[in-house]
């Protein structure tokens, strides 16, 4: 039968896949998508815990409220991030992160 553990493992693997993508990929858009994936993985753990942490027989809606906020913030973040990517592309004509090394000390 399905336990909380199952969900957590799925979340962990999703997170790991996202992280691998962030490290391995060079296309900044893909990296951005992987980041979103990692965020969603975190959301999955929250929702899972909320379901398993019953409160008067109901799921814990505080956790779900947090997920709600996360999604909202992520949406805003995507908007701003994509705008930055557009600006970056305008400046560099490239979305390859290896060419963006302005932060080098």
């Amino acid at each position, binding site marked *: *039968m399905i*336990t*909380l*553990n*199952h*969900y*957590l*493992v*799925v979340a*962990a*693997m999703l*997170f*790991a*896949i996202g*992280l*691998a*993508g962030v*490290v*391995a*990929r060079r*296309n900044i*858009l893909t990296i*951005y*998508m*992987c980041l*979103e*994936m990692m965020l*969603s993985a975190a*959301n*999955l753990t929250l*929702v*899972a815990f909320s*379901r*398993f942490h*019953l409160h*008067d*027989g*109901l*799921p814990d*809606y*505080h956790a779900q*409220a947090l997920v*709600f*906020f996360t*999604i*909202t913030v*992520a*949406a*805003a*973040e*995507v908007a*701003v991030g*994509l*705008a*930055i990517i*557009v600006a970056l592309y*305008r400046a560099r004509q490239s*979305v*390859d992160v*290896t060419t963006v090394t302005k932060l080098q000390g």
Partner: protein
Amino acid sequence: MPAPLFYLLAFITLGFGLLVVLARNPVASALSLVMCFSGLAALFVTLDAYLIGTIQVLVYAGAVMVLFLFIIMLLDIKEEEKKGQRLTAVVGGMILAAVLTLQLTSMAGSFPLAKTKLDDKPLDISAASTAAKDKNHPLHSMQMIRKDLDAGKLPDTALMGQTLFDQYPLHLQMMGLLLLVGTVGVVVLSRRDTAKEESKGA
């Protein structure tokens, strides 16, 4: 919930997730992400989080991904140049993913709650409706919710709304402000520097 359904959904989520990383073409990545998020939304639904699942589909799989695709189209990004993946990056990413997965998996069963089966812990709507009869309970005055609860239905959206507006009104306001700031920021960022261009043209 039948176990095969879970495994199917998990497979969809993880499989398309993997595709996001592996696909060369950003459009393919984006479309895989849509599928991944859809699977995730379904998983939310299996956890009785209907509203969150819906939002996941609407906001993520819908709006956000459209935005991604729009940008990909706008910038006309083709496949990554065949400069080839840097081996170190790929290996590093794989190692990280593997270690992290192992680590998290190995500790996943380390606390009792983790072993609780989903069916062993069903939602108990009648208990909630009894509890709501208490005068001090936050749901006591929520007539609509109590009506649903008394009827044995889970008023998911209403409960979510009650939590947000009752407990986190300030946070909600700030979220709105954040979105506003984000909007303004996007406008500023994506605006072409007209003055500069004019001077260039002149």
